[in-house]
């Protein structure tokens, strides 16, 4: 078994590199799936990923589920990182990022557990990474496929943020709220830092990574209506999302690192 040499990384989140488990030898792509109460849907997503020709290492971040999400994922051979409490979508993603950094993955794909993101689009995201992109955003709007039904207000919000991100980064982004993304190790290094938004990491993260000199690309992906469960953008939360994103974007340039964050 190849055991990686001792890491020189001394940051808190990477105190050591653990030996590569046998089941992922030769797998350099990590798929991070944040999930909260997605039993009955997550198994389809994992099976879809496993049917791909690419060798993927699947990590499900169980964000405080009270159903069988964890058991289903483990039964299919995925590694499950379980939050003791629900910490939010962004925090769940970040746990996956930290895992990726600790284990030294070079490429990462993140996708939803509810079946909206079609595993068939994963190779397209990885191809874009291989072409030199650091962050690949999968857009549902660039594709004639079935876009999930959304309300007028959510479409409007999405358009507004798309315009802001496109103007700010200089890269044509049509779907800034897409959670179907791929990242290079340089991006992983950035997002694994403590300071990644816990709640809704979307447009602000895209702008921030672009400002760090990372290369953004958007590719068309296939999305489906969710298989069930509840959207996290429901009711008043959508309004909070709008407020939070505007606040985050407005203060992006003058923002300072919080002294309350961990020292990684």
């Amino acid at each position, binding site marked *: 078994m190849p055991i990686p040499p001792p890491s020189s990384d001394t940051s808190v989140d990477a105190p050591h590199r653990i030996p590569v*488990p046998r089941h992922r*030898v030769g797998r350099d792509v990590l798929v991070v799936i944040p999930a909260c109460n997605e039993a009955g849907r997550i198994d389809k997503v994992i099976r879809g990923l496993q049917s791909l020709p690419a060798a993927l290492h699947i990590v499900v971040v169980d964000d405080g589920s009270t159903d069988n999400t964890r058991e289903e994922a483990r039964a299919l051979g995925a590694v499950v990182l379980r939050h003791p409490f629900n910490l939010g979508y962004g925090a769940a993603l970040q746990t996956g990022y930290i895992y990726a950094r600790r284990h030294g993955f070079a490429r990462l794909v993140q996708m939803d557990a509810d079946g909206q993101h079609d595993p068939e689009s994963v190779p397209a995201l990885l191809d874009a990474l291989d072409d030199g992109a650091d962050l690949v955003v999968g857009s549902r709007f660039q594709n004639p496929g079935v876009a999930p039904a959304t309300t007028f207000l959510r479409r409007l919000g999405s358009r507004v943020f798309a315009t802001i991100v496109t103007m700010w980064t200089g890269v044509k982004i049509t779907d800034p709220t897409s959670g179907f993304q791929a990242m290079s190790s340089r991006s992983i290094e950035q997002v694994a830092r403590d300071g990644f938004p*816990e709640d809704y990491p979307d447009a602000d993260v895209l702008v921030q990574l672009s400002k760090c000199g990372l290369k953004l690309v958007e590719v068309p992906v296939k999305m489906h209506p969710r298989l069930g469960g509840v959207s996290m953008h429901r009711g008043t939360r959508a309004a909070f999302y709008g407020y939070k994103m505007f606040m985050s974007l407005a203060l992006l340039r003058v923002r300072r690192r919080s002294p*309350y964050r*961990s020292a990684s």
Partner: protein
Amino acid sequence: MLLLEFFTPIDPLKTPQLVLALVVAFSMLAIVLELVRRQKLREEYAFLWICTALVLTTLALSTSILTWLSDLLEAQSLVSILYFGALVFLMLVALQFSVRLTKLTFRGKTVNQRIALLEAEIEELRDLVDDLKAGGSKDAKKPTETPLEIPRSATEIEVPKKKGPRNKVS
């Protein structure tokens, strides 16, 4: 004499108002001090509460300060200034709590993430140990070129008596 004049309630603040303010202030002070005594409230969080009580008391007792402030702010009523003074400090208390909540949220998140990662790591290592104990058989590939010597039971893990190069603990 001067002190008496300074602390004598004169007509603008009516007695019931004064009594209410003092009762509220002293109750607040008593409760906060009692909570600190029982170590149910940390001194750092008690500080602004005590300030609130003191401001309320001072404004209630010192008519000169109260009237001066009222004139300055062209207030209609002395009572409004009295409670406005207390309100400012209560707002500071609320702000302090919001900041502390943010700090705790960050820390709680990080601690929870670490737990999740460590649990997964322990499971992975446990699986690894199980595989090694099983001699790397079954469907798994050979873990190492030279098979490690694994003690059959935990009791065999002892400090080797003979100092041989093979028994060296690496």
